[in-house]
């Protein structure tokens, strides 16, 4: 009951409404400000100075105390101003393997004419990155979040904050950006060897894709390795063509869920399959992936690798 009420209150106070698409503008209602520990110490010192000034009847003491006090108030405005009216947009995050750090790009746009300094971005209040945002520029910064599990990783609630200029106040804003990062399963470190490739039956097998002998050119498809692009042809203005090779491996390599030992668990299997995908890609083989309920056709190159890894990442996940 209490927790629910507190949650509700927090959501209302900090305007938390779940991930937002598009640009977040840090309007006044979204920026919060509180004194820091140093700010409180500063106030205590000022109080001491005020008592001393009264006691010793020090006119200059009064002046100094009030000047510093006014400066404190002023610093609060500066701190607030350092955050106000920034426009925040979530960028993309490259897929990572589980156990690695996912970097979510956040674009901070300062359309005003004042320089913003030392804007920090953090997701856990422990590690922060700081950027300066000059007037009329957009700066990209990235928050790194450890991807523990495969699947879709969302950054959750990020905190954009600043203590500039004097460190007496802490202004912050919660960002709930609609960003996602695909987290691939961590590849098994010492996996099983690649399964044996099956030679495709029939005469068509002669045109199986291999690596060794050049067999002709075809239209470039997205995902073809840049190394196989016929750059000379491109230079002759013939458009992008991909060189095709045939090799002894006129084979079909199927990375099959059901071919794994039955004692393996789901995550273990996914790990193993990820390892195979990487190995097959490294060996520049053509491969396909069979998962329960999903089959990715035979192909090769970066695009195939990423497709397969993504399928593994999202296998049987709710998001």
């Amino acid at each position, binding site marked *: 009951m209490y927790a629910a009420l507190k949650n509700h209150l927090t959501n209302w106070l900090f305007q938390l409404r779940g991930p937002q698409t598009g640009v977040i503008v840090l309007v006044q209602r979204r920026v919060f400000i509180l004194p820091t520990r140093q700010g409180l110490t500063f106030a205590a010192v000022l109080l001491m100075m005020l008592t001393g000034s009264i*006691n010793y009847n020090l006119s200059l003491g009064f002046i100094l105390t009030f000047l510093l006090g*006014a400066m404190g108030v002023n610093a609060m405005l500066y701190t607030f101003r350092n955050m106000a009216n920034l426009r925040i947009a979530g960028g993309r995050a490259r897929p990572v393997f589980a156990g690695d750090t996912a970097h979510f790009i956040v674009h901070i746009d300062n359309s005003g004419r*004042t320089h913003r300094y030392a804007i920090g971005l953090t997701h856990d209040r422990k590690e922060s990155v700081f950027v300066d945002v000059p007037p009329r520029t957009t700066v990209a910064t990235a928050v790194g979040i450890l991807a523990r599990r495969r699947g879709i990783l969302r950054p959750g609630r990020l905190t954009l904050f600043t203590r500039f200029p004097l460190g007496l106040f802490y202004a912050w804003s919660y960002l709930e950006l609609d960003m996602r990062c695909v987290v691939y399963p961590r590849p098994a470190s010492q996996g099983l060897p690649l399964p044996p490739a099956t030679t495709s039956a029939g005469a068509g097998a002669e045109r199986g894709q291999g690596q060794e002998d050049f067999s002709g050119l075809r239209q470039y498809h997205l995902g073809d390795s840049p190394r196989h692009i016929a750059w000379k042809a491109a230079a002759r203005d013939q458009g992008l063509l991909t060189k095709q090779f045939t090799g002894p491996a006129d084979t079909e390599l199927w990375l099959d869920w059901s071919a794994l030992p039955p004692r393996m668990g789901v995550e273990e299997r996914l790990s193993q399959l990820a390892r195979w995908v990487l190995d097959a890609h490294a060996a520049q083989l053509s491969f396909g992936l069979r998962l329960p309920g999903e089959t990715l056709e035979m192909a090769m190159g970066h695009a195939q690798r990423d497709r397969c890894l993504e399928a593994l990442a999202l296998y049987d996940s709710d998001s």
Partner: protein
Amino acid sequence: MTDPKQPLALQHVLWLTVSLTMVAAPHAWRLPWWVVALFATLAAWRAYVSYGRLTLPSRWLLLVVVIGATIGVYLHYRTLFGRDAGVALLVVMLGLKLLEMRSLRDAMLLILLGYFLVITNFLYSQTIPTALYMLVCVWIITATMLSLHHARDEPPFQRQLRVSGTLLGQSVPLMLVLFLLFPRVSGPLWGLPQDAFAGVSGLSDTMTPGSVANLILSDAVAFRVKFDGPIPQPKYLYWRGPVMSDFDGVRWSASRFLYGTPEFTTSGTPVTYEVTLEPHNKRWMFALDLPAKTVPRALTSADFQIRSLEPVANRVRYDMASFLSYRYGAAESQTALRRALQLPPGFNPRSVAFARSLREKFGDDRALVREVLAMFRDQNFSYTLSPPPLGQHTVDDFLFGTRSGFCEYYASAFAVLMRAAGIPSRIVTGYLGGEVNQLGNYLIVRQADAHAWTEVWFRDAGWVRVDPTAAVSPLRVESGISAAVPRTDPLPLLVRGDFELLRQLRFTWDLMANTWNQSVLGYTPERQRRLLTSVGIDDATWRLLTMIMLSLAAVIVVVLSAFMLRRLKARVRDPVKIAYLEFCEKLRRKGVPRDPAEGPVDYARRLARARPDLAAAVNAITQLYVRLRYGAETSAAAFREFQQRVRRFAA
């Protein structure tokens, strides 16, 4: 440098060290030498450690230094509390904290202590130069604090100075409101330490040969006087201070306090003036003969000494009036007269004998006085600041031996002769003259104007002022001390006044100092009340005062925030674009907002599909917009049409 635990960069350490050293520097003259040396060593060590990227000394070593320094301070001051010992401890601790400073958090603590150290300087001096110097210190400390909170690419320090200057400058209005309206309480909240006001000079309540001459070497201001009318002639400017009736052979001391007012007759109208007395830590308050007014929180005695109830520890201001022609004390009590005749037996036998011989020659008191003054004038007596030393019989040695001395020598000798001759007499000390500052039309009386004269009592006239110094050196009365003493005598530069330019500078400076004293340092609860009365608020309670202060402060903060937050949004200057944005805003309200990345033409196309009813108007506007903003269309007519279409669009 934004993480509280991050180690400090070299430039931050250096600036911190520099600013703290600057704040501590004025204390150097007041602290024992080893504290100064210790602080310098610690600061240099810290700079060196940072420079060479060495490790900081262990905390154990620092602890040993802390204990040692504390004991040292205790041994030096015999206490750990109070002003001087407190400052010494604070300086030592600052130095040690410098060497213990590892992170941003430590640096911030040092900065706050630095601000605190600034205020301790004001305990000793609140002059304009101190204020300016401390302002510079605060400026640099603030800039250092600012640079601590920059991210990695830190702008050069000049920029931090500029920003912190702006920050401080923008704080001035609020500071003024707080300063003027913060409810002032008079008097200390708790007992001040013994040493709170040590080291101020002024007239003492005893007089020995040489005591006034010592004061003459100080050009410190004793008080300033602003007359309501013209400044009286120099011969009237006897500022009455301690009156001394008791003589023990060497030392004159101030009489016990005598209550009551003697009868007196005055003629003419009194001169009225305002005295601003500098603190001198004694009770004396000064007025021209004959004071005709009482001072609040002070008593006036039967011999017209004005004594404050408490030692004058702060600058005080009081209104005073004086009758320049008067007669008083004709019916003086027998006790007082007997005291004014007492001489310690066994001292100054030659003088006593000389006085008796004079008495035999002159039956008339006035004739006798004239004779003694004539002796001072005509024989080889000289007026000098550096007289030869006197023996046990000071007056004998002076009258028949050295014959050179300062005012207190003459006053003392004269009074002794009078008493020996049976004429009641006493010493009055105070100040004579003063310097007119034409710029502000007020009188500056310095310690160098200290003077001692005598009063003798005649049966028919009461107490009459006789200044034996005037007989020796009439210039002393007419033109002040600098004209009276030989040029070879040491006198403070400010008192000499040889060069016209220097004089002018000096007057300007004193005018500034006086204005500063009156309006800044002398901003007392009374002044505050007067200020409020002048704007029509009579007897403001502290509650009302607080309310006024807070509401004014709120107004200032609102104005300031409006000023500071005004340049945060992108400003669109192109009127065409402004009109188009207005158009987009209207569509947003209709529920079809434009995507951030959507061009006008795409938007119009999408709108045509989503809201076919608006398509015609949207297309017309979009086409006009594209032509006006991106095309060659510049005619005013086209712009007007565009604007009108946008305006009419809402329907």
